[in-house]
């Protein structure tokens, strides 16, 4: 039982980070019907900005919770700006172009940031400092650190904040309107361009937070770190129903748990089926993606939208 709970906690912690990332994908897809491949690189930039900010503020030798919060805010600002620029420069000119063009551009931006990042930051991994003091905790039979709890807490707080923005503010209403029907929204007087920009900014801010949280629990960061978490977060967004905000959160958690338990049942799977299931955990996540898209493309919480001819 203890082991089960331990795995549960691990899965939820990782899942929260995926959830934060997935939110960015899902919001952008909702308003633009575009898969923003570059989102995973915003996540990476968030982690690196946090790294440099932490060192600039001398947090490695002087860890504090306030410092951690400051670092995160700095990252969020930088990434928000980056997301804004990304949209303006690379996506807005292509809004009326065929969708394939924007997709390819998104891929191009993603790769540009990855390899450009290698040039700017250097290809060697860097190690995120411990920005506030770390301590081990024992909750019953489950061993964890305050970092893991911090991650879950911050992620939940941010997600709650996003829910509030999306469902309780005018901006959120406008965002939902744009994702329902772009033309009607603009006809209703909603400044669609601005809304879209804000959506990107919001998504990027969450990605920056995710990057910092990731850096906390998995200190090794390098310019290519966004690729796999980004892909998995995207799978999570699709799983939950792309365009659906609560869906992305649910999807993120589920993917985190699937990854965790794939490894957990490995000894049993090896004994029963002679397959090291744990080694295929990446393939399992992609297989989930394929299965969802084939059997239930609207995802778990999405609505089935018939295609109008």
């Amino acid at each position, binding site marked *: 039982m203890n*082991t089960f709970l*331990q*795995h549960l906690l*691990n*899965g939820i912690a*990782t899942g929260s980070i995926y959830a934060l990332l997935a939110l960015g994908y899902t919001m952008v897809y909702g308003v*633009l*019907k575009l898969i923003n491949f570059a989102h995973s690189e915003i996540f990476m930039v968030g982690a690196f900005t946090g790294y440099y900010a932490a060192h600039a503020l001398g947090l490695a030798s002087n860890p504090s919770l306030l410092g951690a919060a400051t670092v995160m805010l700095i990252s969020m600002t930088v990434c928000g700006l980056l997301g804004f620029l990304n949209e303006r420069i690379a996506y807005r000119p292509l*809004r*009326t*172009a*065929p*969708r*394939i063009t924007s997709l390819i551009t998104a891929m191009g931006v993603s790769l540009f940031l990855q390899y450009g990042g*290698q040039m700017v930051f250097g*290809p*060697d*991994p860097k*190690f995120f400092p411990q920005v506030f003091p770390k301590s*081990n905790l*024992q909750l019953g039979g489950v*061993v*964890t*650190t305050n970092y893991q709890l911090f991650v879950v807490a911050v992620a939940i707080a941010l997600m709650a904040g996003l829910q509030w923005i999306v469902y309780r503010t005018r901006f959120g209403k406008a965002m939902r309107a744009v994702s329902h*029907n*772009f*033309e*009607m929204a603009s006809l209703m007087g909603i400044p669609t361009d601005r809304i879209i920009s804000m959506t990107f900014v919001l998504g990027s801010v969450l990605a920056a937070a995710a990057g910092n949280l*990731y850096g906390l*629990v*998995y*200190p*090794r960061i390098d310019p*290519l*770190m966004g690729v*796999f978490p980004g892909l998995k977060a995207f799978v999570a967004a699709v799983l939950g129903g792309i365009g659906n905000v609560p869906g992305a959160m649910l999807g993120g958690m589920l993917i985190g748990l699937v*990854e*965790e*338990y*794939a*490894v*957990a049942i*490995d*000894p049993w799977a*090896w004994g029963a089926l002679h397959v*090291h299931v*744990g*080694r295929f955990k*990446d393939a399992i996540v992609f297989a989930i993606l394929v299965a969802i898209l084939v059997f239930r493309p609207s995802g778990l919480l999405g609505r089935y939208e018939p295609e109008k001819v």
Partner: protein
Amino acid sequence: MTPKRPSLPTAQPPRREGPGPLALSAIALVALAAVASGCGGGGDRSGGAAASEVVVGEYGSLTGQTAAFGSQTHRGIELAVDEINAAGGVKGRTFRLVTEDDQSKQEEAATVVRKLISRDKVIALLGEVASSCSLAAAPIAQEAKVPMISPSSTNPKVTLVGDYIFRVCFLDDFQGHAMARFCFNTLGARKAAILRDIRQDYSVGLANFFAEEFARLGGQVASDQSYSSGDSDFKAQLTAIRAAGADVLFVPGYYNDVGQIAIQARDLGLTIPLTGGDGWESPTLLAIGGKALEGCYYSNHFDPSSSDPTVANFFRKYSDRYHEAPGALAALGYDSAKLLADAMTRATDITGPAIRGELAATKGWAGVSGLITMDQNRNPVKPLVVLQIQDGKISLRETIQPF
């Protein structure tokens, strides 16, 4: 609804029939001939050695995934080359090193080795650290009869490619078996857990060799988990290992993963010692792993703190020049270059086959990483050292002779 998007430019008008296959191949021929004549001449012009030099090629991963390893090896080789030239070169000729970066990719390794051989006309090759790159390049060197010395590829298959391929490090089977014996005999472990890097041939090989020897000695492998290098989260695997109740955890991965694994293991309350192979070797291992690595052990090619004059000398010269402590990779790089120069000096003339012959005949050559004698598969018979991490410092625990 999203903004209205047109599809790609509209359908084409009725097409003219294109040229038939005859014309197509004619186009292809012409194009190729153009490329060929444009570039073909270049082949003879560049590269080649002046009579007063000996050109040796080095290929390594100076960028990419394993950039840290390639760069360190390169520094060791560079140091050796400068010393060789300062001492008068090889038979009076300057030892010129041409270095190419393979970006940690196998395809690139093959490309740059071909370039080194055909364009730069190197007489011998040094490289690579990663066995996968060595395996990609070795057939090319073998075919061109260019002797190749790998400083640190530990996969047994590398030297089996041909009789022109050598190495100066021990093999994974010896390393894995030795660490199994260490865990069983010295640490007294009876139940071992393994956490292998499924993406690295090196790690998988070592894990297999460890497991087979540990079982042969009478121990039990209680848990065999895996991760992919580049993964950040090992908690799932470590939780499963914790549940299996092992006495020791064998982690035959690379240092940057190992550091994190150790930290996460301690975070989960796993207190058993971690053991590993020479992939742990790095000046930054302790910086990454910190206190989590206390009481852990790993095998290596040489003991950097040894008071043996050869080792101490090398250590001093390297640290003076590069302002960092040399790791095993630097030592092996250094040894590979020095051994090559020595073989060239012993050889009757500086040609591929003669150098090869002398390399194969190497006996008791004193390198920084130990005494090297080549066996019939062109692998050196050398001892292995087990290093321990105690009080934040690395020190020698045991030396294991070849068995």
